[in-house]
């Protein structure tokens, strides 16, 4: 039986291995989160002494045009991006899981947008979708469309542009996750389904989709969180414009914190964002129990 001393030693070693990660988490994630919660009840400009604000930072949000626009836009963005990315990445994964020629080449191509520098691809994207000089609109003209979308420059199309960009950028990554899921499906299931005389669609519907439910759940949660936190894509493609058409919550947090130096109300928005993500994730976890096997 090991002595108490050697037991303690073992634990210390174990803790020391966790420590680097945990200290990083504590210093750079946990402390700021707690600080942000505290800040949301204070007035602070980052320099002068803080003063107590009570819930006024939250109450003020109800009458804040910037916040209201950004909340609506974030929800619209997530509702558009999450299902589209999910479907596209699943579709890609199923196709690239077949024994087609140059499979690895196509896998790499679809993964490329995810690893490519956002700054570079956003610039290219803006050129391709330029309302008056871009090749996309040129093509639409040639195809006979008389009024072509203004994409990032039109407030009705800007959000659609951002959603399309996000789907294109993220689907390669989730495709990889789906590919891993597909490879985990027991081939015997397909054999059995074949013997039962099923067609391709039936095998996809009754074997692939149920077998992938755990993967789908994971992708759903990750995507939703990612969508609520979107900032970089908006910054690069539309700078939240035109007007407030693509202003999202994190953008509003940035404006409040680093343009107006109103850290209290910026933190209040951050808390709202946190609660939103929390609620959506809890709902999804609840749903998981029912729809995953």
């Amino acid at each position, binding site marked *: 039986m090991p002595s108490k001393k050697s037991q303690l*030693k073992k634990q210390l070693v174990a803790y020391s291995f966790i420590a680097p990660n945990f200290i990083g988490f504590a210093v750079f994630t946990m402390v700021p989160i707690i600080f942000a919660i505290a800040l949301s009840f204070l007035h602070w*400009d980052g320099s002068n002494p803080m003063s107590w604000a009570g819930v006024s930072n939250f109450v003020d949000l109800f009458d804040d045009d910037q916040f209201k626009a950004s909340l609506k836009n974030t929800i619209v963005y997530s509702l558009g991006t999450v299902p589209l990315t999910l479907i596209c990445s699943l579709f890609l994964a199923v196709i690239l899981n077949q024994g087609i020629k140059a499979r690895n080449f196509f896998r790499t191509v679809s993964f490329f947008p995810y690893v490519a520098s956002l700054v570079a691809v956003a610039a290219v994207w803006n050129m391709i*979708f330029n*309302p008056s000089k871009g090749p996309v609109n040129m093509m639409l003209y040639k195809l006979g469309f008389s009024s072509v979308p203004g994409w*990032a*420059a039109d407030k009705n199309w800007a959000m659609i542009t951002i959603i399309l960009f996000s789907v294109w950028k993220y689907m390669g990554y989730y495709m990889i996750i789906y590919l891993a899921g597909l490879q985990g499906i027991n081939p015997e299931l397909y054999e059995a389904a074949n013997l039962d005389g099923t067609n391709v669609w039936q095998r996809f519907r009754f074997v692939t989709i149920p077998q992938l439910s755990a993967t789908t759940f994971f992708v759903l949660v990750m995507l939703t969180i990612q969508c609520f936190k979107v900032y970089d894509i908006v910054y690069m493609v539309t700078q939240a*414009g*035109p007007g407030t058409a693509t202003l999202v919550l994190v953008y509003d947090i940035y404006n409040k914190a680093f343009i107006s130096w109103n850290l209290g109300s910026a933190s209040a928005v951050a808390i709202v964002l946190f609660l939103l993500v929390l609620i959506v994730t809890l709902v999804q976890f609840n749903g998981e129990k029912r729809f995953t096997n």
Partner: protein
Amino acid sequence: MKKVLTIVLVLSLLMGAVFANGTKEAAPAQAGVTTLKWALWDIASTTYYEPLITAYEAAHPDIKIEMLDLGSADFMTMLQTQLSGGDSSIDVVTIKDIPGYNNLVKRNLLLNLNDKIASEGVDLSLYGGTTDQISVDGKLYGIPFRSDFWLVYYNKDLFDKAGVAYPTNDMTFAQYDALARKMTSGMGADKVYGAHYHTWRSAVQLFGILDGKHTIVDGTYDFLKPYYEMVLGEQKDGIVQDYATLKTSSTHYSGVFYNNSVAMMNMGSWFIATLINQVAQGNTEVKNWGLVKYPHAEGVTPGTTLGTITSLGVSNASKKKDAAFDFVKFVTGPEGAQIVAKTGTIPAIKNEGVIQIIASKPGFPTDSASRDALQVAKTYLEMPLHEKSAEIEVVLNQVHDEIMTNNISIDAGIAKMNEQVQKILAK
């Protein structure tokens, strides 16, 4: 034994990670030499930093000036973030815009210079009133060293080719609009646009404040209507490039002027030095260009224009405030002004001698109108000092963007500005 070794290794790694930040503070200082850190932007493309520093260090062998480049685009945000983190290593700060200055002052990050200005005998009358424009309750937290103003740049060759007389130093907005329309010609790659508005709000919206009857922080913006009508009309008729296209392609204003595609362009005087340089290096298609005063509303004195002030201040957290102020005094003073002017940049001390230096710089247009264009009658700040200027600017920028991309009508846009800015002012 192995385990002990592991723990020691892990701990030393951790210590390294945790204290890595602290070590750089302990850089050995040369005996007797004080190092001042100056926060600024764009070292590579700004020509006056080096000569200013060289001149100062030559006169003060015990001082070394170190530059800290925080980048141009987010300079004020970067600076404020650094300073509010309690960074005492920055001594001298450059202040790029008024909303940022206002925030720095409000947040108590800048030293009040009044005492030092009095004890060192700095003559504020040299600054043409700019120091009054940035005084907060009679206290000055920065001294201007550059005072830029807006002009109209024009491409002489394009005017000659079209057989149209050059613009003049006395142009009303109606005349300016007519001239822009007259100068527009060609199709496709040969298209020449009569005028050009960069995607900044200031390039279009601020025409409205030049009559002196309104400011941009008033909370009512109905006076902007005729100017938006003029610019959107030009945009619709293809007299100027489309705002949406310029914005989504992030087109820089210099490029369109360099490649002979615009006849006239309203822009700040900071472009003079760059333009002279680029033309001299043969990087441009434009060879002959000129300057005239900003267009003006009916009944307003020609030479009334927009201005921006760039000032230098001393960080409140600096441990070398006296030395830092001495450097600020040099750069912003008459000696610094001469050095700045020699690079083609307009210093805040703008006397006849300084104008002479800029106008006689090789590459500056030789006609007398261009030279006279440097004489300014009255300057209105792009953004006046106001407690809520940063917040107001966010709204104005958004609505300007909507109006220029035709996503909102001029009337509805103005109503939106009125409503949202008044809400901010009432808070």
